[in-house]
């Protein structure tokens, strides 16, 4: 019962935040709504029993990425004024109603086709009640990270170091 309530709340948060990111005109508001979406995804991870994943989602996204995005939005002066409802500047040859209707229908048809194909493979899916009970995943993930996936773990540490140094070098103001 508690899982159902958590799932419904997280799903509503995800859908509302996602639609807000799409339709919000103000970029600061879109960043904040994306934070709502990420909280909802963390709740969905918690329903799935992935506790370590939910915690790291909250820490990394809420503490790191969204703050970084908000800093970038504020440093670059917010959103532009000459934009329509979708945040698109009025440029000739794009952004008319016809092109968006056609593009949206195409995306919908493609996606529904793919999901229909997938659904035929997944007829015998299990419900959550029939699955083995929840156990903590932290110790298993820690063991797997230093045994089976140790190469990916080390490479990701090198990637993070490179990203850190690269971001500092790129964003540094140059003189002369």
């Amino acid at each position: 019962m508690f899982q159902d309530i958590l799932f419904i709340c997280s799903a509503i948060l995800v859908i509302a935040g996602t639609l807000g990111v799409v339709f919000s005109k103000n970029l600061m508001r879109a960043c904040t709504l994306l934070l709502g979406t990420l909280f909802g995804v963390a709740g969905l991870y918690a329903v799935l029993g992935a506790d370590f994943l939910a915690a790291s989602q909250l820490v990394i996204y809420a503490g790191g990425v969204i703050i970084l995005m908000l800093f970038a939005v504020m440093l670059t002066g917010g959103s532009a004024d000459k934009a329509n409802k979708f945040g698109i500047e009025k440029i000739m040859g794009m952004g008319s109603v016809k092109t968006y209707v056609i593009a949206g229908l195409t995306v919908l048809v493609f996606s529904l086709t793919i999901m229909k194909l997938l659904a035929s493979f997944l007829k015998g899916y299990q419900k959550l009640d029939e699955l083995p009970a929840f156990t903590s995943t932290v110790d298993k993930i820690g063991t797997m990270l230093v045994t089976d996936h140790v190469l990916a773990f080390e490479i990701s540490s090198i990637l993070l170091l490179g990203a850190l140094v690269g971001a500092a070098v790129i964003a540094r103001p140059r003189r002369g």
Partner: protein
Amino acid sequence: MQDHVEDNGANMISLPSYLFLSFIMFIAGLVVMVARKNIIAILLGVELILNSAALNFAAYTRFINQNLEGNIMSLFIIVIAAAEAAVGLAIVIRFFQLKESVHIDDATQLQA
């Protein structure tokens, strides 16, 4: 988890509902990436798409096979998204210093 209050087969926590939520996030991210003209807004769409992929991995590892490989993959997706956001926003800030703009159509030259 063990309380079978009503077992009429209408449990909504299942793999298709997770796939549906992830599908909505993916399509919204795609629409944001295509329709927005601000570079930071495009990065928001990239974050949405990466999150939908990570959610799919976690859902499949819970409902199909109960090992934790999908959780590991979602963890690496989160790490890569953090690195991508850091470098991308550094590029955006540098671009704004050079061109005084964050419009995607102004990004035509590699060298200022």
